[in-house]
């Protein structure tokens, strides 16, 4: 079984690479078919993910007792409500699905992200300290960017935006460019390992 999977991955991987350099119509046809299959497989993975989540939450519900049961129950009810309202009714702003989305999911997610600001403010007061030379550089950069990115900061400290723009355009770009290159090289190396079958079959099974 593992051998067959390796051969399929090798053939499809090489096909995907070769078609990139073949501008012929047949190459484009192969490319389009591979992409169609990729989207189909990912759609299938979404279904598998939903089933796995539901199974996990059912088991959690059975294993936990008392008030702890409410969390898996809420997850299952939320999952079921979104799935069935989407399948049974239309999906638009006036439908049940649209209402659940606009009046429950959207505020919940916005609240979750907004809460970060409160914790960040507390952490900035307690932990953002002049404890070492690197921490001092980080602190100075943070203060300049915090002031330079908003109109009020420019009014309090004139021309501060010039310094914040420099920080974003020079040291930030240098660091992120290095990161992108590293990510690209590591991604290519991993892709080659998978195509050539070096990556162990255990990882293909998701273990």
């Amino acid at each position: 079984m593992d051998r067959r999977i390796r051969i399929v991955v090798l053939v499809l991987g090489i096909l995907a690479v070769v078609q990139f350099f073949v501008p012929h119509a047949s190459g484009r046809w192969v490319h389009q078919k591979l992409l169609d299959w990729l989207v189909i497989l990912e759609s299938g993975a979404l279904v598998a993910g939903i089933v796995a989540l539901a199974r996990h939450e059912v088991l959690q519900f059975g294993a936990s007792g008392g008030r702890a049961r409410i969390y898996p129950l809420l997850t299952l009810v939320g999952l079921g409500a979104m799935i069935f309202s989407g399948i049974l009714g239309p999906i638009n702003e006036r439908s049940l699905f649209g209402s659940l989305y606009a009046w429950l999911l959207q505020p919940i997610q916005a609240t979750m992200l907004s809460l970060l600001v409160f914790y960040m403010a507390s952490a900035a007061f307690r932990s953002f300290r002049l404890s070492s030379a690197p921490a001092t550089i980080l602190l100075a950069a943070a203060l300049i960017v915090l002031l330079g990115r908003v109109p009020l900061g420019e009014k309090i400290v004139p021309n501060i935006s010039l310094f914040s723009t420099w920080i974003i355009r020079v040291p930030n770009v240098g660091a992120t460019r290095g990161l992108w290159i590293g990510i690209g090289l590591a991604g290519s190396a991993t892709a080659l390992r998978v195509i050539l079958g070096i990556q162990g079959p255990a990882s293909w099974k998701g273990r």
Partner: protein
Amino acid sequence: MDYPAVVASITKIDRRFIYLLVGLAVAIPLLLAHQAEVEPTEESMAFHAGVSTLGEGDVVLLSTDYHAGSASELNPMVRAFATDVFRRGARLVVLSLNAQGTGLVEAEINKIAAEYDRTYGVDWVFLGFRPSTPAVILALSASPHSLFPQDFRGNELAELPLTAHLNGYRDFSLICVISSGATAQDWVIYGHGRFQCPMVAGLSGGIGPAFQSFVDTHQIAGVLVGLRGAAEYEQMLELPGEALRALFAQSLTHMLFVALIVIGNISLLATRWIENAMR
């Protein structure tokens, strides 16, 4: 005065007091509905310049790849962009590479289309969501009909006047990506890198700086970053909206952060100084 006690009380300030200050810094400007004025950055002006090249009948692809948590800074960008496109008489094909993006944009663009008397299917179309970002971006280089046989509303794409004859990126005059995650990187690599599509982007404040390198290399023609980017765009369009109103709240919150960091460090230095003096 008992200076050590004062410094100790500042250092041990209750976190709930800080939460209250943050709440007030956000809520008061929003309740006052004060409009901020902002100086546009080069990147935002380049974004606007990119959209300014559009003419009557041009087709634009808008990819809205964000979740509800980022809606407060990215929804104003989508609204302003759709308004800019419709004002220029261009047409809009919208899709989402984040499942949650579908619920966020359709209603917004629907309202703007009604305001500018634009017809669905003729002047704009919403394709909906498909998983697998790189595959979708690459597949759109050819006809979108195999990937999206129907639009979000269930209409056959081949029967809608706007999408019936679409045949890949060559038919789009501009691609605009509004994103809160890594999909903007996929658009740069697969969309611009392979097919040289002219591209502008609107990014959430958290990921914006990571994409500055793509702006410098002109892989992204112009970029709006965070709420400030949205506010700058609203100001350039003379379309005061949610972003310009919220920017004052963001300004005050930034100032509060600066004050907290400064006070925290002064109290730390004072504590050290007092400890050394008492030895």
